[in-house]
């Protein structure tokens, strides 16, 4: 399908994915014109902004040949901590909340990163562990209780909803994160080294790039973004509880892979991830509108994700000679 609509040699694969996303949007809209009303689109963008932010963070880790399964748990824990902070210091203002969210998220990411870098545990094992640890900590700090909108200050709740040029601050932050990530990856030495370390760790060693350090940096960035997303999530849905964003890490990774990020490292970019996130967001928002039974929604969205990944990986291989998905038998 991607091939039909214009992924040819030389054309960035983001173009094909973008066209596919537009096609999807068009199909849904033709069937259900209600889908394209402003309010629905705003909510779609707000939902997707969280997914895109987390996916951008995840991309850093994937680029260095790792994977971060703890992003959603990190967001849940950080979200709970800032909600409790807000409940105890309701007059503190937005700045301390943002600082706590980012610093704490980064610290949780650093913990992952140090285990990968210094203790040399594979990232999938590390984050499978910290996924449970961080989510367990949500229970510990909250005692299992919810923090409801009633306990949250007005500034805490309204900040994410405040419209600038008709678009919520939440969406603007998502955009800002994506733009900063793009600039970082394109124009800073650290950003470039992140690609180099993931593309060929062996060659990176010869070039004086510390691969472990780059992996650690990726985890810190992923964690910081997850922490920020944790606050935004809790504020947007006006509730903090143990199961916030439970299982969301899988959608985050799916957005990356659809967006052309190689799970074997060194390949991918912010633009693809943003479109991948939008693609997933549209599917998630469209299924209920189209009237698919909630019981089938997961199966259908899973099916569509799988097909998108296969098409994307196939066209990417054809165009760049690089495999996004290695065959299982070829690895190890």
């Amino acid at each position, binding site marked *: 399908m991607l091939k039909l609509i214009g992924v040819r040699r030389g054309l960035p694969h983001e173009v094909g994915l973008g066209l596919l996303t537009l096609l999807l949007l068009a199909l849904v809209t033709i069937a259900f014109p209600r889908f394209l009303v402003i309010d629905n689109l705003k909510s779609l963008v707000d939902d997707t902004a969280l997914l895109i932010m987390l996916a951008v963070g995840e991309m850093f880790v994937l680029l260095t040949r790792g994977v971060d399964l703890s992003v959603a748990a990190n967001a849940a824990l950080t979200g709970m901590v800032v909600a409790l902070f807000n409940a105890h210091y309701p007059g503190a203002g937005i700045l301390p909340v943002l600082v706590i969210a980012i610093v704490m998220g980064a610290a949780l990411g650093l913990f992952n990163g140090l285990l990968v870098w210094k203790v040399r545990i594979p990232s999938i094992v590390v984050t499978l562990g910290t996924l449970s640890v961080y989510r367990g900590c949500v229970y510990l700090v909250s005692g299992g209780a919810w923090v409801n909108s009633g306990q949250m200050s007005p500034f805490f709740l309204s900040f994410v909803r405040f419209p600038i040029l008709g678009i919520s601050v939440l969406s603007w932050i998502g955009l800002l994160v994506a733009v900063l990530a793009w600039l970082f990856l394109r124009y*800073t030495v650290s950003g*470039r080294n992140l690609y180099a370390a993931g*593309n060929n760790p062996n060659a990176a060693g010869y*070039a*004086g790039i510390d691969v472990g350090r780059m992996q650690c940096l990726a985890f810190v960035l992923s964690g910081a973004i997850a922490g920020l997303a944790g606050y935004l999530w809790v504020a947007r849905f006006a509730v903090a509880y143990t199961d916030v964003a439970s299982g969301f890490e899988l959608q985050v990774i799916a957005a990356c892979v659809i967006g052309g990020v190689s799970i074997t490292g060194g390949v991918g970019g912010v633009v693809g991830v943003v479109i991948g996130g939008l693609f997933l967001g549209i599917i998630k928002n469209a299924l209920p509108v189209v009237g698919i039974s909630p019981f089938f929604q997961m199966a259908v969205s899973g099916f569509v994700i799988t097909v998108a990944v296969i098409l994307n990986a196939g066209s990417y291989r054809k165009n760049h000679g690089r495999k996004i998905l290695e065959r299982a038998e070829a690895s190890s």
Partner: protein
Amino acid sequence: MSEPILSLAGVTKSFAGVRALVKGEIDLYPGEVTALIGENGAGKSTLVKILTGVHHADGGDIRFNGEPVHIGSADNAGRLGISAIHQEAVVFDDLSVAENIFVTDRPRKRGMVDWATMRERARVILAELDPRIDPRMPMRQLSVAQKHLVQIARALSNEARIVIMDEPTAALSHREVEELFTIVRRLKAEGRAILFISHKFEEIFDVADRFAVFRDGAAVGQGLIRDVSRDQLIAMMVGRSVDQIFPKTTVPIGEELFRVEGLSRGEEFADVSFGLKRGEILGVYGLVGAGRSEVMQAIFGLTRADHGEINLEGRRLTIKAPEDAIGAGIAYVPEDRQIQGGILRFPITSNIALPSLSHLSHKGFMRRSDERALAEDYVTQLQIKTSGVSQRLEELSGGNQQKVVIAKWLATNPRVLIMDEPTKGIDVGAKTAVYRLMGEMVAQGLGIIMVSSELPEVMGMADRILVMRRGRLRATFTRAEATPESIVKAATDA
């Protein structure tokens, strides 16, 4: 005579108790090419890794322009002006050519990577090396030779005073090697010191001014290339004379055992016909890409030939898959021991028993004792050095791994044994052991087809030599007729 720019004395390095470098000694002079010669495992790569700062030396003295220095990191190596071009082209395939050149020192403007300057500077450097390379191209699209040129461009970009070339010609065609040497001579004329690592003596005598020979981690000789002969170098390298390396035994050659007639497959090879006699070692020589392995894979059923027939003992075989070939009595020891030949993480027992499982099983179940007995039998017969048959393959040395892979196929009782590069990447002692084993196997009436890219090996071991070039059989020599010149001519002439 000028002073050496870099001088190593008594450098040592061990890995987990194994001494990789016992006495690393070498002097590099500005404006001269020093060839570093040694068998696999002689300590050449360890030396390179110390010079490029990938490994720290455990002890010894490294002097740069007479001053003691500590390299220790890739950054420090770069600061000293040491730049390396690696054998397997250590590059970033998905980054642009320009970024590959400047990866250690990307041009910056106000802290941000300055892509325009990077591309421009890359263009200037590449114009002298190969103007066809566009700095914006992804590295993946380049040929191996071009990837080497990009690594040379990297050395030029950071004004390297010492350029290390680790078997840069291993994967290059004759013409590409010539082009590379033109560049080497230019680097030399510019006063850079070059460390040139190669197995090929023609190249060494063509391009080098000095030599340094390593054996078993120690420097065993240094000097001027004009004062030394090829045989002297070989003797230093292996510590024994050439005849001892190839223990060719005379075995009576019997009647024809195996015949391939008119075998063709797509664009890989065409109209390949040859016979193999009982007790014969048939050498198949050719350059990389000549189609030798492809023919063998078709015979073994890994791929299917479009045309042609395969006969064993006068009977026509239908081979659709490797199990047909194994059943008929053909075994194939593949080129890549670590990936195709054996399962590194499995114990010796499982590796040896693997293709014989159907013989060994009783009603579908395995008896571990049978497996063990089989493995122990071969470990004794082939003198495999191991602490026991339950040791994992990855813990053995390269030579012993190869013996296990051979044992695995002998256990299937083959009549024809195909060996693809049987001594690739193993040291001289182990090579001799493999050759001796080949002699014993043909003495028992087997026929061996030995695919090899090493001319001395083909000439030393084969009774008859087939030469392939671009998918076709071009010449056949008997052992008596074969000369290095005639074989190479048949393999390379258009």
